[in-house]
């Protein structure tokens, strides 16, 4: 299996036509590999969220190609695309997007059930995913009985359940306090270190710093990237 989970090849996105056309993305080349978390930063309107919706196959780009786990999205039918999204991609949103009438485990199991799994069978990997985010003991709680941080951890469990390997997170800590946000990022980082890959859209530098690479967007273009060298000790880091 290739280590490359996602490739954006010359992706451009334009809304509208003629004089009123707005270019949201322009010639984006980006790859995300297994074990890699890529943060996307940029001012409001720089194209961050558009990049995520295009990468997740929610909107086709105006030009260029999106390749997820070797599948060229432009060559998939709507049904195939929906299947790929269910099996390969997990989304995490700022406002959690859990279904309030379902328990935590039912929320996490939902993508599997939509994919044809029987409820009982789906609950096993769902419970495993909740265990990873340390919420197995709250599997039967409803979202309203969980704190914001716990709801976001359920959302992360849902994003990775059943071996889905590409996590697309749009400001996942935006609605959380600083400490809870760090816990959620640690969970996200842990899933990536365990073999997933991810894109983290954020405007918060301290949160972007959890990523392996930080990509800057301006006016729909990648203008720069930051990538830390490996650091062996705190002493190395603080002595620089």
């Amino acid at each position: 299996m290739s280590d490359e989970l996602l490739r954006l090849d010359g992706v451009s996105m334009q809304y509208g036509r003629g004089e009123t056309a707005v270019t949201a993305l322009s010639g984006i080349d980006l790859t995300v590999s297994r074990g890699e978390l890529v943060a996307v930063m940029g001012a409001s309107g720089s194209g961050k969220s558009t990049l995520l919706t295009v990468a997740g196959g929610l909107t086709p780009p105006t030009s260029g190609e999106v390749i997820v786990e070797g599948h060229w999205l432009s060559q998939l039918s709507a049904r195939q695309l929906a299947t790929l999204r269910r099996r390969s991609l997990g989304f995490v949103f700022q406002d959690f997007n859990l279904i309030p009438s379902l328990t935590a485990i039912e929320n996490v199991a939902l993508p599997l059930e939509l994919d044809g799994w029987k409820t009982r069978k789906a609950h096993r990997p769902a419970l495993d995913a909740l265990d990873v985010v340390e919420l197995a003991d709250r599997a039967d709680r409803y979202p309203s009985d969980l704190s914001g941080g716990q709801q976001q951890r359920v959302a992360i469990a849902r994003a990775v359940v059943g071996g889905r390997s590409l996590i697309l997170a749009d400001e996942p800590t935006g609605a959380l306090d600083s400490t809870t946000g760090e816990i959620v990022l640690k969970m996200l980082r842990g899933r990536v270190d365990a073999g997933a890959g991810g894109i983290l859209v954020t405007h918060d530098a301290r949160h972007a710093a959890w990523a392996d690479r930080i990509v800057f967007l301006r006016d729909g273009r990648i203008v720069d990237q930051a990538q830390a060298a490996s650091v062996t000790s705190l002493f190395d880091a603080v002595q620089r």
Partner: protein
Amino acid sequence: MSVRQSLLAILDQGPCYGYQLRTEFDRRTGSTWPINVGQIYNTLDRLERDGLVRKAEIDAEGQNYYQITDAGHGEVESWLGSPVVRSTATRDELAIKLAIAVTLPGVDIAHVIQVQRTSTLTTLQELTRTKNATDNPESSEELAWLLVVDSMIFAAEAEVRWLDHSETRLARAVAAGVAGPIPLSTEVPKRGRPAKALSAPSATGAAHE
């Protein structure tokens, strides 16, 4: 400067000799503020001159111990009980660099900002990784170390936010037509004290006349 007060606070725990003080300072601050033994002895000389410490015994190995005085103990209490006051006159190299760069012709200030932001974020990534490797402190030394690293993380974050803010401010100033280079003045500068720091610039943009 806090090295003086830090050494004094360590001496408040009991008599120490110079090299021992350096070791104690390092283990409490994660070696984030390197000081040499010469600096330690200079500081001890000044503390002795000011009556805050006095020379105590010399041990069998010839180590000269210093002991805190009552006045020194009072100084430690006063230090711990008072805030560290931030100066309103900046000596921040980056702030000065941007301030100068924005007044020069032919400088792509957005590029200057981006280069800095990338560098600061790289540092922030390094700090975050190393902090995560030691996130659950198992001793007072590790806890003290993490406090210093947290401070560096928040300072780096603040710098990135300031750079973002500067970029936005610059874009607005360019749009409003007020972001132009400042040519060398043909007026002979008047001698005397410069205008007070942080005074508002005049309408012509020259703060110090």
